[in-house]
């Protein structure tokens, strides 16, 4: 039986970049591209202390699967997306998107497109917590 060549996950555990790289590994691939979206300490001029990521889980997972399946359709040998949910501190990875392919050239564009699709289609919302203000839901990216 063939191993599936794409994978989408929602998780409440810390995302391990090395484990993602291992999953993407393939003997025919000379290139592995990984993008990590990370919680940063500043958004819209407010000091962010943490972000809670909340999802419509079945819908989000389905959309995430469509994104990685699309990347494989368009040339990735393997594609992996993992979105973290729950409360994240500054510096933690909220999304990891990765692709492997024989040569690196097309990988940059595939990851960029995948992230645009994730940002517009995956049913996840940030509830941002600030040092000096009440938490806010972010809608639209």
């Amino acid at each position: 039986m063939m191993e599936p060549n794409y994978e989408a996950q929602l998780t409440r555990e810390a995302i391990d970049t090395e484990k993602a790289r291992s999953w993407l590994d393939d003997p025919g691939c000379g290139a592995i591209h990984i993008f990590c979206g990370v919680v940063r300490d500043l958004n819209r001029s407010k000091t962010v202390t943490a972000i809670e990521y909340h999802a419509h889980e079945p819908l989000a997972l389905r959309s995430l699967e469509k994104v990685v399946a699309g990347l494989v359709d368009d040339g990735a040998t393997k594609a992996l997306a993992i979105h973290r949910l729950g409360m994240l501190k500054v510096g933690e990875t909220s999304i990891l998107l990765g692709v492997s392919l024989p040569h690196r050239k097309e990988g940059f564009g595939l990851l960029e497109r995948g992230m645009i699709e994730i940002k517009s289609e995956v049913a996840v919302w940030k509830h941002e917590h600030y040092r000096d203000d009440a938490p806010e839901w972010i809608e639209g990216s």
Partner: protein
Amino acid sequence: MELDLLLFASLRDIAGAQTLKVDLPEGATVSELLEMIAQNHPEFAPKLPHVRVAIGDEFAQPGDTIPADQEIALIPPVSGG
């Protein structure tokens, strides 16, 4: 038919709850659902132009019929990633 619509993000704050109970005629479409909410729950009206409806694990089209046996959710603009 009675439905508990799933709410997310700011819609939960507006409702003060995670769901919104609505009563719809059988065969109502997605756009009829949104019109009904705008009329009966005007506190959601400013949000609705940017809200999509999901049926189960798929986004729905305006003309789709609302089924009685699947989860229906109101999806404000997403902000994941």
